[in-house]
């Protein structure tokens, strides 16, 4: 499953899309909106937007790279767009493989690559007013 969604993400559904009887290791990463910016300012929420067709192509490319690097891994990626409050899930990456090491490695590779290159943007909204687009430092 590769998706850009405007509704809340259900990580269990994401895991369900890649689990099967041959895979004993399932690793899920959740990126959650936190209440504090890197510079210490209080954050009330994040606004995300995506260039959807290109973002989905990147998700699929990342999944192909994961299989090339780590082997028999199934991977699912979903990212949310729109206005998110503190505590909500912005991104979920799930990886399932026969054993755990491959799933951990695949999941880490996928979220790192997503953050580095997927055409998705976020704006921080600060307590007391103010907002700023924040680029990832990878």
């Amino acid at each position, binding site marked *: 499953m590769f998706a850009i969604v405007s509704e809340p993400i259900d990580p269990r559904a994401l895991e369900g899309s890649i689990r099967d009887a041959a895979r004993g290791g399932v690793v899920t990463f959740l*990126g959650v909106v936190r209440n504090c910016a890197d510079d210490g300012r209080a954050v009330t929420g994040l606004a*995300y*937007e*995506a*260039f959807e*067709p*290109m*973002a989905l*192509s990147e998700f699929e490319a990342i999944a192909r790279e994961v299989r090339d690097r780590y082997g028999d891994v199934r991977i699912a990626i979903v*990212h949310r767009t729109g206005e998110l409050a503190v505590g909500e899930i*912005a*991104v979920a990456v799930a990886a399932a493989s026969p054993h755990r090491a491959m799933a951990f490695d695949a999941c880490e590779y996928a*979220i790192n690559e*997503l*953050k*580095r*290159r*997927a*055409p*998705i*943007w*976020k*704006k921080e909204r600060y307590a007391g007013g103010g907002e700023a*687009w*924040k*680029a*990832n430092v990878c």
Partner: protein
Amino acid sequence: MAAFAALRELLGSSPIELDLAEGACVREAWEALARDRAGMSALAASTRIARNGTVAGLDDAMTDGDELALLPPVGGG
């Protein structure tokens, strides 16, 4: 032409149609947009431009009907 994040706020959300000379390259499309918008030059170095869904080089030639997207530094996750 579509734009995202800070560039969308500068250019607006509606697709922009550009009328360029035959054989124009991606750089010329950017320059046509930036000509009347002071805020864009500061973003030039960090912006990637996709042509029909794939990141393009500034010297890539365009053909009629190409769709460009202006991609500022990404912040997903």
